[in-house]
Protein backbone atom coordinates (compact mmCIF):
# COMPACT_ATOMS: atom_id res chain seq x y z
CA UNK A 1 0.00 0.00 0.00
CA UNK A 2 1.50 3.30 -1.04
CA UNK A 3 1.29 6.55 0.88
CA UNK A 4 -1.30 7.97 -1.47
CA UNK A 5 -3.60 5.00 -0.94
CA UNK A 6 -3.29 5.36 2.82
CA UNK A 7 -4.12 9.06 2.70
CA UNK A 8 -7.11 8.49 0.44
CA UNK A 9 -8.41 5.69 2.67
CA UNK A 10 -8.08 7.86 5.80
CA UNK A 11 -9.88 10.74 4.12
CA UNK A 12 -12.71 8.55 2.81
CA UNK A 13 -13.10 7.06 6.30
CA UNK A 14 -13.26 10.61 7.71
CA UNK A 15 -15.87 11.50 5.10
CA UNK A 16 -17.95 8.43 6.01
CA UNK A 17 -17.79 9.28 9.73
CA UNK A 18 -18.87 12.86 9.05
CA UNK A 19 -21.68 11.68 6.79
CA UNK A 20 -22.92 9.18 9.39
CA UNK A 21 -22.92 11.91 12.03
CA UNK A 22 -24.70 14.42 9.81
CA UNK A 23 -27.34 11.84 8.91
CA UNK A 24 -28.00 10.41 12.36
CA UNK A 25 -27.50 13.10 15.01
CA UNK A 26 -30.50 15.13 16.12
CA UNK A 27 -28.68 18.20 17.34
CA UNK A 28 -28.17 20.96 14.76
CA UNK A 29 -24.68 21.79 16.06
CA UNK A 30 -23.55 18.19 15.65
CA UNK A 31 -24.89 18.08 12.09
CA UNK A 32 -22.73 21.12 11.37
CA UNK A 33 -19.78 19.34 13.01
CA UNK A 34 -20.32 16.38 10.65
CA UNK A 35 -20.27 18.73 7.66
CA UNK A 36 -17.01 20.26 8.91
CA UNK A 37 -15.47 16.78 9.12
CA UNK A 38 -16.48 16.08 5.51
CA UNK A 39 -14.87 19.37 4.41
CA UNK A 40 -11.67 18.38 6.18
CA UNK A 41 -11.68 15.05 4.39
CA UNK A 42 -11.75 16.92 1.07
CA UNK A 43 -8.83 19.12 2.19
CA UNK A 44 -6.83 16.04 3.13
CA UNK A 45 -7.37 14.71 -0.39
CA UNK A 46 -6.03 17.93 -1.89
CA UNK A 47 -2.88 17.75 0.23
CA UNK A 48 -2.39 14.05 -0.53
CA UNK A 49 -2.59 14.60 -4.29
CA UNK A 50 -0.30 17.62 -4.01
CA UNK A 51 2.22 15.52 -2.07
CA UNK A 52 2.21 12.46 -4.36
CA UNK A 53 1.17 14.00 -7.68
CA UNK A 54 3.37 15.34 -10.45
CA UNK A 55 5.38 18.41 -9.53
CA UNK A 56 4.48 21.78 -10.99
CA UNK A 57 5.96 25.19 -10.48
CA UNK A 58 3.44 26.60 -8.04
CA UNK A 59 2.19 24.85 -4.87
CA UNK A 60 -1.36 24.73 -6.23
CA UNK A 61 -2.63 22.08 -3.79
CA UNK A 62 -1.63 24.16 -0.79
CA UNK A 63 -3.23 27.27 -2.29
CA UNK A 64 -6.48 25.42 -2.93
CA UNK A 65 -6.56 24.14 0.67
CA UNK A 66 -5.92 27.63 2.05
CA UNK A 67 -8.89 29.01 0.11
CA UNK A 68 -10.97 26.04 1.20
CA UNK A 69 -10.10 26.66 4.87
CA UNK A 70 -11.18 30.29 4.45
CA UNK A 71 -14.52 29.30 2.94
CA UNK A 72 -15.04 26.67 5.66
CA UNK A 73 -14.40 29.24 8.38
CA UNK A 74 -17.00 31.56 6.83
CA UNK A 75 -19.46 28.67 6.54
CA UNK A 76 -19.00 27.71 10.20
CA UNK A 77 -19.50 31.29 11.38
CA UNK A 78 -22.72 31.78 9.40
CA UNK A 79 -24.03 28.33 10.29
CA UNK A 80 -23.51 28.83 14.01
CA UNK A 81 -25.10 32.30 13.84
CA UNK A 82 -28.11 30.74 12.11
CA UNK A 83 -28.31 28.08 14.84
CA UNK A 84 -28.30 30.83 17.47
CA UNK A 85 -31.06 32.73 15.65
CA UNK A 86 -33.19 29.59 15.33
CA UNK A 87 -32.61 28.77 18.99
CA UNK A 88 -33.80 32.22 20.00
CA UNK A 89 -37.12 31.65 18.19
CA UNK A 90 -37.76 27.96 18.85
CA UNK A 91 -35.90 27.51 22.18
CA UNK A 92 -34.45 24.24 20.93
CA UNK A 93 -31.70 22.97 18.66
CA UNK A 94 -33.23 19.53 18.24
CA UNK A 95 -33.90 18.89 14.56
CA UNK A 96 -36.88 16.59 15.03
CA UNK A 97 -38.59 19.11 17.31
CA UNK A 98 -37.86 21.91 14.86
CA UNK A 99 -39.34 20.05 11.91
CA UNK A 100 -42.18 18.37 13.79
CA UNK A 101 -40.86 14.93 12.95
CA UNK A 102 -40.80 11.80 15.16
CA UNK A 103 -39.83 12.60 18.74
Amino acid at each position, binding site marked *: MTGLTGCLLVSSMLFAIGLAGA*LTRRNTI*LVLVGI*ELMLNAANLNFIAFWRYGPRSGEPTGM*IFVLFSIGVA*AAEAAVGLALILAVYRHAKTT*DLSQLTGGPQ
Partner: protein
Amino acid sequence: MSAPFLILAVVTLGGACAAMMLRGLVHCALALAVAFAGIGTLYLCLGAQFIGLAQLLVYVGAIAVLIVFVILLTRGGDTDSPPLGPTALPVTGIAVATAIFAILAWAILHSFAGHVPGLPVPRTNIRQLGLAFMGSYILPLEVIGLMLTATLIGAVIVAMKEKQP
Protein backbone atom coordinates in the same frame (compact mmCIF):
# COMPACT_ATOMS: atom_id res chain seq x y z
CA MET B 1 2.96 4.31 5.12
CA SER B 2 5.11 5.23 8.07
CA ALA B 3 4.46 4.71 11.76
CA PRO B 4 3.74 8.41 12.50
CA PHE B 5 1.18 8.47 9.72
CA LEU B 6 -0.59 5.41 11.12
CA ILE B 7 -0.64 6.80 14.67
CA LEU B 8 -1.95 10.17 13.47
CA ALA B 9 -4.60 8.48 11.33
CA VAL B 10 -5.80 6.42 14.30
CA VAL B 11 -5.93 9.50 16.55
CA THR B 12 -7.79 11.54 13.90
CA LEU B 13 -10.34 8.85 13.11
CA GLY B 14 -10.85 8.07 16.81
CA GLY B 15 -11.44 11.75 17.56
CA ALA B 16 -13.90 12.01 14.68
CA CYS B 17 -15.76 8.87 15.82
CA ALA B 18 -15.93 10.20 19.37
CA ALA B 19 -17.17 13.59 18.13
CA MET B 20 -20.00 11.87 16.29
CA MET B 21 -20.92 9.27 18.94
CA LEU B 22 -20.59 10.81 22.40
CA ARG B 23 -23.76 11.95 24.17
CA GLY B 24 -22.52 15.12 25.86
CA LEU B 25 -22.24 18.06 23.48
CA VAL B 26 -19.17 19.57 25.16
CA HIS B 27 -17.41 16.19 24.98
CA CYS B 28 -18.24 16.12 21.26
CA ALA B 29 -16.65 19.54 20.78
CA LEU B 30 -13.47 18.48 22.60
CA ALA B 31 -13.21 15.27 20.56
CA LEU B 32 -13.69 17.41 17.45
CA ALA B 33 -10.72 19.57 18.50
CA VAL B 34 -8.64 16.37 18.81
CA ALA B 35 -9.70 15.29 15.31
CA PHE B 36 -8.84 18.72 13.82
CA ALA B 37 -5.45 18.72 15.55
CA GLY B 38 -4.82 15.23 14.17
CA ILE B 39 -5.61 16.42 10.64
CA GLY B 40 -3.29 19.40 11.12
CA THR B 41 -0.42 17.15 12.17
CA LEU B 42 -1.20 14.86 9.23
CA TYR B 43 -0.62 17.88 6.97
CA LEU B 44 2.70 18.49 8.74
CA CYS B 45 3.54 14.82 8.21
CA LEU B 46 2.79 15.17 4.48
CA GLY B 47 5.14 18.13 4.14
CA ALA B 48 2.63 20.99 4.05
CA GLN B 49 3.88 22.94 7.05
CA PHE B 50 2.05 26.18 6.40
CA ILE B 51 -1.27 24.45 5.85
CA GLY B 52 -0.81 22.35 9.00
CA LEU B 53 -0.22 25.40 11.16
CA ALA B 54 -3.09 27.29 9.48
CA GLN B 55 -5.33 24.30 10.19
CA LEU B 56 -4.31 24.32 13.86
CA LEU B 57 -4.92 28.07 14.10
CA VAL B 58 -8.24 28.19 12.25
CA TYR B 59 -9.87 24.91 13.25
CA VAL B 60 -8.55 24.17 16.74
CA GLY B 61 -8.15 27.80 17.68
CA ALA B 62 -11.26 29.35 16.18
CA ILE B 63 -13.90 26.91 14.97
CA ALA B 64 -13.74 24.48 17.91
CA VAL B 65 -13.94 27.39 20.36
CA LEU B 66 -16.83 28.89 18.36
CA ILE B 67 -18.68 25.58 18.55
CA VAL B 68 -18.13 25.41 22.34
CA PHE B 69 -19.49 28.97 22.62
CA VAL B 70 -22.62 28.10 20.66
CA ILE B 71 -23.17 24.93 22.70
CA LEU B 72 -22.97 26.95 25.92
CA LEU B 73 -25.17 29.74 24.50
CA THR B 74 -27.90 27.31 23.48
CA ARG B 75 -28.50 24.76 26.17
CA GLY B 76 -25.38 24.60 28.29
CA GLY B 77 -24.23 21.21 27.12
CA ASP B 78 -27.28 19.10 27.76
CA THR B 79 -26.98 15.61 26.44
CA ASP B 80 -28.33 15.01 22.97
CA SER B 81 -31.58 13.12 22.66
CA PRO B 82 -31.33 9.65 21.09
CA PRO B 83 -30.81 9.57 17.32
CA LEU B 84 -33.54 9.58 14.74
CA GLY B 85 -35.40 6.41 13.83
CA PRO B 86 -37.53 3.80 15.53
CA THR B 87 -34.67 1.90 17.14
CA ALA B 88 -31.99 3.19 19.48
CA LEU B 89 -29.33 2.55 16.84
CA PRO B 90 -29.64 4.74 13.71
CA VAL B 91 -29.29 1.83 11.29
CA THR B 92 -30.16 3.66 8.08
CA GLY B 93 -27.64 6.48 8.41
CA ILE B 94 -24.82 4.19 9.43
CA ALA B 95 -25.67 1.78 6.60
CA VAL B 96 -25.58 4.61 4.03
CA ALA B 97 -22.24 5.88 5.35
CA THR B 98 -20.76 2.38 5.40
CA ALA B 99 -21.91 1.74 1.85
CA ILE B 100 -20.35 4.99 0.65
CA PHE B 101 -17.10 4.16 2.43
CA ALA B 102 -17.09 0.69 0.87
CA ILE B 103 -17.58 2.13 -2.62
CA LEU B 104 -14.85 4.76 -2.10
CA ALA B 105 -12.40 2.22 -0.65
CA TRP B 106 -13.05 -0.19 -3.53
CA ALA B 107 -12.47 2.60 -6.04
CA ILE B 108 -9.26 3.73 -4.31
CA LEU B 109 -7.84 0.21 -4.04
CA HIS B 110 -8.50 -0.43 -7.74
CA SER B 111 -7.25 2.93 -8.99
CA PHE B 112 -3.85 4.13 -10.12
CA ALA B 113 -3.10 5.30 -6.56
CA GLY B 114 -1.47 1.96 -5.76
CA HIS B 115 1.14 2.45 -8.48
CA VAL B 116 2.21 5.99 -7.64
CA PRO B 117 5.96 6.05 -6.94
CA GLY B 118 7.04 7.32 -3.54
CA LEU B 119 8.36 10.74 -4.40
CA PRO B 120 10.35 12.83 -1.93
CA VAL B 121 8.52 15.57 -0.04
CA PRO B 122 8.08 18.60 -2.33
CA ARG B 123 10.13 21.57 -1.26
CA THR B 124 7.99 24.65 -0.87
CA ASN B 125 8.75 27.60 1.31
CA ILE B 126 6.52 30.36 2.55
CA ARG B 127 8.12 32.81 0.10
CA GLN B 128 6.97 30.69 -2.86
CA LEU B 129 3.46 30.50 -1.40
CA GLY B 130 3.31 34.24 -0.74
CA LEU B 131 4.53 35.06 -4.25
CA ALA B 132 1.87 32.77 -5.72
CA PHE B 133 -0.83 34.46 -3.61
CA MET B 134 0.33 37.94 -4.51
CA GLY B 135 0.93 37.03 -8.16
CA SER B 136 -1.36 34.74 -10.09
CA TYR B 137 -3.91 34.25 -7.28
CA ILE B 138 -4.40 37.88 -6.29
CA LEU B 139 -8.01 38.10 -7.52
CA PRO B 140 -9.26 35.01 -5.59
CA LEU B 141 -7.44 36.35 -2.52
CA GLU B 142 -9.28 39.68 -2.78
CA VAL B 143 -12.58 37.89 -3.34
CA ILE B 144 -12.11 35.70 -0.29
CA GLY B 145 -11.20 38.73 1.81
CA LEU B 146 -14.40 40.45 0.71
CA MET B 147 -16.37 37.27 1.38
CA LEU B 148 -14.95 36.94 4.92
CA THR B 149 -15.85 40.56 5.69
CA ALA B 150 -19.39 40.09 4.38
CA THR B 151 -19.67 36.84 6.33
CA LEU B 152 -18.59 38.45 9.59
CA ILE B 153 -21.09 41.30 9.19
CA GLY B 154 -23.81 38.85 8.17
CA ALA B 155 -23.13 36.52 11.10
CA VAL B 156 -23.29 39.42 13.57
CA ILE B 157 -26.56 40.66 12.05
CA VAL B 158 -28.12 37.19 12.05
CA ALA B 159 -27.10 36.43 15.62
CA MET B 160 -27.97 39.89 17.00
CA LYS B 161 -30.92 40.19 19.33
CA GLU B 162 -33.98 41.56 17.57
CA LYS B 163 -35.41 44.82 18.86
CA GLN B 164 -38.58 44.41 20.88
CA PRO B 165 -41.44 46.24 19.08
